[in-house]
């Protein structure tokens, strides 16, 4: 067809072997996303090993301070490096990224550990809890106990400001999305689907199963760090009563929620 291809695999034979020795499960590729973003793709699936490579590379890119590179956005399986084409060319950017990729380790980043008080009660706060329990064949109390029993890793943030995609759910709780998405899901809704958990940061449409509600203020534009969660952080959901949630929500609405109380290791 003679159409110019923007997609190329950059690793030469030598690099490929070096990467294999270093334990790369998947050979990373550079994929052009126009002339303002370059994707470093480590795989096409959700996987902690791949995620660790992505998050470590993001940190290295930030530390390298490459002129013309504005920011790097991690996802489950790739890092999108946004750049200014008036300052740096894609080819040059690749050359600068290669040494950062070469020695990359899949060691998990140690992020902040958070505790999120969560009310798993009622038709209003947990409208899908009973359905989820029925679908997976256990009791609602067991769903809550399982969801609250594991540390959920923040793989990435997307969709809306501060909204984290966390995993992995215990196998028993793995369900597809709802067949009919809701037009409005309330902010603070703790929701599960496709093996993951998310907390809606704003009222928005959504197709995940809502099993609880938290008052944690996840995004405040005027805070020093607007988004509470960063990729690499972990969250443990702690069941609390409706009254406790309501009190926390009132504090949150007044801007009086002390987020430092949510840190697990302090």
């Amino acid at each position: 067809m003679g159409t110019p291809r923007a997609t190329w695999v950059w690793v030469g034979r030598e690099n490929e072997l070096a990467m294999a020795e270093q334990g790369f499960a998947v050979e990373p590729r550079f994929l052009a996303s126009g002339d303002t973003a370059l994707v470093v793709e480590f795989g096409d699936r959700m996987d902690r090993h791949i995620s660790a490579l992505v998050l470590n590379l993001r940190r290295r890119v930030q530390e390298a301070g490459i002129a013309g590179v504005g920011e790097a956005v991690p996802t489950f399986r790739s890092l999108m490096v946004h750049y200014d084409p008036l300052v740096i060319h894609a080819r040059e950017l690749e050359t600068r990224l290669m040494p950062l990729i070469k020695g990359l380790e899949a060691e998990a980043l140690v992020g902040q550990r958070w505790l999120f008080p969560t009310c798993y009660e009622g038709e209003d706060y947990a409208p899908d809890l009973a359905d989820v329990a029925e679908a997976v064949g256990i009791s609602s109390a067991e769903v809550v106990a399982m969801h609250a029993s594991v540390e959920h890793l923040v793989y990435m943030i997307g969709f809306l400001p501060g909204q984290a995609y966390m995993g992995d759910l215990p196998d028993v709780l793995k369900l597809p999305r709802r067949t009919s998405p809701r037009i409005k899901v309330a902010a603070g809704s703790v929701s599960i689907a496709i093996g993951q958990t998310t907390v809606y940061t704003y009222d928005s449409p959504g197709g995940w199963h809502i099993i609880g509600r938290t008052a944690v203020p996840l995004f405040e534009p005027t805070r020093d760090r607007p988004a509470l969660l960063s990729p690499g952080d972990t969250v443990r959901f702690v069941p609390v009563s409706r009254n406790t949630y309501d009190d926390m929500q009132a504090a949150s609405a007044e801007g009086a929620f002390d987020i430092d109380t949510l840190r697990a290791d302090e």
Partner: protein
Amino acid sequence: MSAHLRVIAPGLATSVQDTGRFGYQRFGVPTAGVLDRVAMAAANTIVGNEPDMAVLEMLYLGPTLEVAAGSVRVACVGLGAGMEVTEGQTTRQVPALESARLGIGARLRVMVGRNAMSCVLAIEGGFALPAVMESRSTFVRAGIGGFEGRALAAGDLLPLALEEAEARDEVRLPDLDLALPSRVRVVLGPQDDYFTPSAIETFLSEPYEVTRAADRMGLRLSGTPLAHAKGYNIVSDGIATGSIQVPGDGQPIILLADRQTTGGYPKIATVASADLPVLGRVGPGTKLQFEAVRIEVAEDLRRAQAGIEAGWRQQLEPANAVKGVRDASLYDANLISGVADAWMGDQLD
């Protein structure tokens, strides 16, 4: 005394925008920013601002504003755009690409071109609004930035940085071509391998029309459906402004300023950054013809565009220059290129 623009009628979706909010995408914050970067830079240049100062961007239907300041200097830029200024009993038209100084109490109606999606209005000195996360761009869905994080509403008082416009003659920027190029240049990928070869050929040979679902999020296109080779769900991946994603129905969507930071549909191609401004400018019904270029070509196009923009300040001419004289001077300038700037400068003083 403080200086404001009072919003008499807000228009359909009028918001404060600059080049965008960068550095927060990994926290899920879209860049937002002006749809038509070229129009913004031109309008700012005409009123004497730095090219990237925050402007008012309006979609489809422009606002009516009243000057609540000693005076203001404004300029609008957009395809088929213009301004109607009423001072006392007098109403006058001010074309796009030309500055105008308005006194206290003047009313300004900005008109978006009939076939256009957006135009911008620059104000000398800009707005007295705080930057939120390093930008004055409004991201309406999350209530971030600009004027109270939202589109303008009737009765709003938009604070201005200057109480008086600088005393100087009005200018215009001649010969700025705002029209759609015959081909919109794209770089294939990052998921072109999710499409059949014939889908890629179709995408690059057939026209795709901008539908009425065209806003700051993106442009939904309509044309021959594009077949996926291996499904239409991918594990979420980053999105760039200009990414062309293709969901299950096979109809492409060009993602613009208010796009999500990440998404789960495969992206067949990405619009070259030099061709993005015009996509934020043209409106529904526009037929787009895509052409694939190598990334190096896209980079060259952008550099060439930046070079042209860098020359605008020297090209400004008096707003009251007679058309025929201007054409003649350009003709002469072409004949003696190299000394054109100096020669024109002498004539214009």
